[in-house]
């Protein structure tokens, strides 16, 4: 596939109808909450686009993000869009291996220096560079080298965006996120464990069409991470009515009531799961009967327990209250005894006023 051809030409060659292409553009515009008038703008921009070079680096990760993207559905238009992007280096997907693979990365960097998009999944070991290497190069060195020539960086998955599971307590590798190491480049965070495939492609489309998207305080594109799961959840009316499942097999669970009591992190989690859903819009975890784990938020693995309700303190408060009571008894007895002694002393030292004293004063 030639890099000189535009996306429009490539789609035409591959027999993708304009109708299908516009449908994809409309879906993407809808996900980004853009008005219908923007659909032709997205279509026109994408059609004219020449295949930008993408280098995808995978560090401390489980390949779930790549699996999410590639196994979403066969032959979707997202796949073709991705085919149309020149994915020059992705060590899980590329055919080449060893030095040939690294050569592909170096060539792609040289040819497109300053213009390629860097996609990263996985966290980077911060304690010891030897924890994770590729072709003898530490993750940190490779990230900094490739990031230096990138037009922009897209951190995909919770590991690359916030450290993810490798960063979970006790974080043996000292895992850090991309934004912890790269400070001088635009970074778009696409968290999730894994992120929704349509969101990954949506972010790329948004970036290619409109440039750097509007980001929230955690560097996430507001178009996809602007709403909490709770606010968009189809079970929200049950929360409002005070109807909750108390266990995974009680009447409430069977009736599809709110999963807040079972530890749902929907109220504090921003993602598009409740609207875009998974498997081509089939379902999402809450619809399948499981509470949201909050995987698109920082430290989701250590956020007080998956099955503990958000309002419940994370430490043993009952024990704290008992210790406090014991400490209060000791301190209170000491203070009380001191006050009692003062009172007795005051009574003892009390000078009685006689009629004679009063007479003298007057």
């Amino acid at each position, binding site marked *: 596939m030639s890099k000189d051809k535009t996306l429009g030409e490539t789609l035409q060659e591959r027999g993708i109808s304009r109708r299908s292409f516009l449908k994809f553009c409309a879906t993407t515009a809808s996900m980004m909450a853009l008005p219908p008038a923007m659909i032709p703008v997205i279509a026109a921009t994408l059609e004219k686009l020449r295949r930008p070079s993408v280098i995808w680096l995978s560090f401390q990760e489980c390949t779930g993000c790549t699996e999410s993207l590639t196994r979403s559905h066969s032959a979707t238009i997202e796949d073709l869009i991705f085919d149309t992007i020149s994915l020059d280096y992705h060590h899980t997907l590329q055919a080449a291996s060893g030095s040939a693979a690294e050569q592909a990365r170096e060539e792609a960097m040289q040819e497109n220096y300053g213009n390629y998009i860097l996609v990263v999944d996985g966290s980077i070991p911060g304690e010891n560079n030897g924890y994770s290497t590729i072709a003898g190069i530490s993750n940190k060195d490779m990230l900094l080298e490739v990031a230096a020539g990138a037009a922009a960086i897209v951190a995909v998955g919770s590991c690359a965006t916030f450290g993810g599971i490798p960063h979970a307590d006790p974080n043996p590798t000292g895992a850090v996120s991309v934004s912890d190491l790269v400070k001088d480049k635009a970074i778009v965070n696409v968290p999730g464990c894994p992120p929704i495939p349509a969101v990954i492609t949506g972010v790329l489309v948004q970036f290619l069409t409109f440039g750097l998207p509007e980001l929230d305080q955690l560097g996430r594109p507001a178009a996809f991470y602007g709403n*909490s799961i709770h606010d968009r959840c189809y079970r929200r009316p049950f929360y409002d009515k005070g109807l909750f499942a108390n266990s995974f097999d009680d009447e409430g669970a069977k009736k599809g009531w709110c999963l807040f009591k079972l530890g749902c992190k929907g109220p504090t989690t921003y993602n598009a799961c409740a609207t875009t859903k998974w498997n081509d819009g089939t379902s999402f975890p809450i619809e399948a009967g499981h509470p949201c784990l909050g995987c698109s938020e920082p430290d989701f693995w250590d956020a007080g327990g998956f099955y503990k309700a958000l309002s419940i*303190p994370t430490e043993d408060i009952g024990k704290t209250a008992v*210790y406090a009571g014991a*400490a*209060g008894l000791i*301190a209170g007895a000491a203070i009380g005894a001191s006050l009692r002694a003062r009172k007795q002393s005051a009574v003892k030292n009390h000078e009685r006023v006689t009629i004679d004293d009063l007479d003298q004063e007057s």
Partner: protein
Amino acid sequence: MTDTEFLLWVRGPAFSAATFIMCAGLVIRFLEIFLLGRKADLAEARGSAAAGGFRTLFRRSIPDAGSFQRSGFTIVSGYIFHIGLFIVIFLFVPHILVFETVSGLSWPGLPSNIIDATNVVTMIALLAVLIHRVKDPVMRMLSEFNDYLVWFVTFLPLLTGYLAFHRVALSAPMLIGLHILSVELLMVLFPFTKLSHAFTLWMARWYNGAIAGYKGVQS
């Protein structure tokens, strides 16, 4: 510190610290009062101290006609915000879960929209009593810094709760974190301010009633 880290801190170490201070503080305050002791009443009992105590516990919650005519506003607004606080604190399901974790006791909650509406009414009632306190010359003269502090730490959890429920301005983890932190501030100040009346009120009323009952006087 990210918003999530902040939320975890207020749900974890900060909540434990607030619980410790509140529980230890309450025990200290109770012991301070009890250990002072009272002189034995050597007079012959002319009635039942216990009966008078329990009767007063109940009767002092009902304003008499004279009080109502003199301080109708204080009584009505006081009832509204106290009942409102009870509903908002004890009948919101996420709050019940906290009490259940500590005590093992659970009870049914109200729909969150009813809690939200009650919260708004309670905040209005609290604002009204504050305005009354500032406007009324006698109230203003009697008020000191502590009175305004107590009002503030009572109002703050209602306000942050409202903001967290409606997700105003900040991220949800930050808003929920601020709400819990405001409750922790209330917990820390509880034993050491007039807020402790929520506990001491009952024994004070009982004691007043018991003295009267012992003397055979109705209170």
